[in-house]
């Protein structure tokens, strides 16, 4: 078999999937351009009216909240993920490396609902943390953690951590340890070497990690639904409410499209803003 024919075999599934997604997206696009008939799933005639809905302050607030949650999640994941990724690459013992890898990657293989429900057991009013603090007498009443923004961010961090660790570890493993040696030979201790050499050289990974986690969290649904409990809403939750509770499919479609576009634009902007770091190519 020639090289190019193998290539086509590999690409075919991707093309089929892409077509499927394109079809689904076109359906959403079609829905977004139809009139809503209250109380019915059947849609009316063609209109662009639905898009004006996006300019309502409520929707703008949802968008900016979502972006804020995504940004906080991406940054927090970065802070937690970097040391793990660094250890994953630089720890000498292969047993320790395997352990770190398994712990870091496992969340990926747990269903989203399962994972989110287990956080209820930890964060709930009678959950693990509150029970422990009450038992120790450190608090008199349960601390309200559920249905708060920090809780949503915390669970989302757990969700995005594996992908961040994988991206960062890949970037860090590209950094020749000789750079650190060179830095130390020039009088910089481990901390200064890290700050001046390793960290800047991991910039490509930092950028890729932040953008990926941001874009990934943007479509989060189950986590804000369960942990936010209607008090912390992201775009996915609002789409759900409008679509399933009010049966307003055209409006839900408009919101979904806006979400996709918003992500693309934000990721594009972020990419552009981080352009100055692009000349760092390691190896």
């Amino acid at each position: 078999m020639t090289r190019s024919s193998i290539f086509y075999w590999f690409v075919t599934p991707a093309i089929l999937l892409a077509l499927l997604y394109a079809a689904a997206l076109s359906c959403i696009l079609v829905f977004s351009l139809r009139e809503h008939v209250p109380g019915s799933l059947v849609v009316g005639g063609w209109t662009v009216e639905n898009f004006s809905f996006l300019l309502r302050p409520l929707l703008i607030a949802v968008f900016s909240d979502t972006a804020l949650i995504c940004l906080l999640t991406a940054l927090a994941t970065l802070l937690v993920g970097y040391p793990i990724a660094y250890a994953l690459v630089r720890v000498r013992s292969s047993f320790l490396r395997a352990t770190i890898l398994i712990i870091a990657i496992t969340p990926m293989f747990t269903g989203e609902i399962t994972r989110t429900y287990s956080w209820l057991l930890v964060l709930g009013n009678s959950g693990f943390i509150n029970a422990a603090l009450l038992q120790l007498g450190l608090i008199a009443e349960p601390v309200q953690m559920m249905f708060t923004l920090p809780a949503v961010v915390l669970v989302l961090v757990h969700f995005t951590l594996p992908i961040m660790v994988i991206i960062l570890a890949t970037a860090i493993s590209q950094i020749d340890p000789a750079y650190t040696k060179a830095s130390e030979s020039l009088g910089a201790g481990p901390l200064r070497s890290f700050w001046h050499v390793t960290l800047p050289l991991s910039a490509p990974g930092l950028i890729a990690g932040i953008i990926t986690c941001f874009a990934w969290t943007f479509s989060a649904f189950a986590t804000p639904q369960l942990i936010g409990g209607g008090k912390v809403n992201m775009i996915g939750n609002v789409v759900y409410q409008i679509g399933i509770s009010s049966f307003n499919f055209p409006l839900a479609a408009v919101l979904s499209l806006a979400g996709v576009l918003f992500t693309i634009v934000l990721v594009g902007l972020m990419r552009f803003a981080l352009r100055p770091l692009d000349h760092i190519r390691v190896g």
Partner: protein
Amino acid sequence: MQSASVDIVQAGKTFGSHIALAPIDMEIRQGEFMTLLGPSGCGKSTLLNMIAGFVTPSSGAIRMAGADVTRLPPYRRKIGMVFQNYALFPHMTVADNLAYGLKMQKLPKAEIRAQVARTLEVIKLTKFADRHPRQLSGGQQQRVAIGRAVITNPQVLLLDEPLSALDKNLRGSMQVEIKEIQQRLGITTVFVTHDQAEALSMSDRIAVMSEGRVRQVGTPDEVYERPSDGFVASFLGDVTRIFGRLTEIRGGAAVILTEAGPLRLPEAQADLVLGQDCEVFIRPEHLTLVPDGQPAMLRGTVAMRIYQGGHFDILVDHPGAVGGHILLRLTDREQAAQAEPGRQIGLHCDPKNLRAFPSA
């Protein structure tokens, strides 16, 4: 800062049961250019990294200018180091790379700028100050690496196979440049290489190493002319080895019986006991052609004549030689013309240039 002497006192390194470096003693004098020469895995890099502080010795001590630095991390040792692939910081310009060590010393900005400018002049890269390492040629990167290592005025300059990434022509001119900078600064230098030609041309002294041990320490001509053992003799330069056995010691001369008959050499050049199996070492440039019809030390048929530009390498078939050939080097074209393939020739070597070592 004054350049320093380095004393290695019974320093060794073991990894589990593997001995990377058997405990050794070595004294590197102030301002000296010392080369650690040996094949890969001989322990030379371990020793260099020990002097740098990247490897902690399992035993013994390392002193710089008399002060014990065995437990000091690299960043407190006042060293300058040039790495095999230079390890120039890719995210910094040439000027920033040079400034790095001075910044770590927290020197005032103006002084850093002045020193960087001066160093750029020394390494002839003033015009390239704002480039990134990726935009430089191999030789230019090499010069930046050296500049970065010496700008802080280190006590010791450590070079870890710095020329191995360069092509052959460039290597020659970089050898000269490194040597020039080293002499101008008068800096104590430890240079690691597996290239014997590099070692011979650059060093004040060479430590020949193999299998975690130092075989011989001496000036280039000492290790070349008076190797302490068969390993040193065959690692430096080309050599022909002829199997034999010490059969007799008489009147200060050792007689070694070989396939080619008895060879006589001064007793002092044969580190053997009577009856011991040995190899006689002959350098190709020490062999001369004997005119036809005159007695010769060795005889054989020319197998191949290889033109090398400045000289000819002649391979002469001989059953007693390791590899089956004697190597002879002729610079004279007329003589070389006589050594035609297929022709019987006689060879002579002054006995004072013969060495014999026990068979490995």
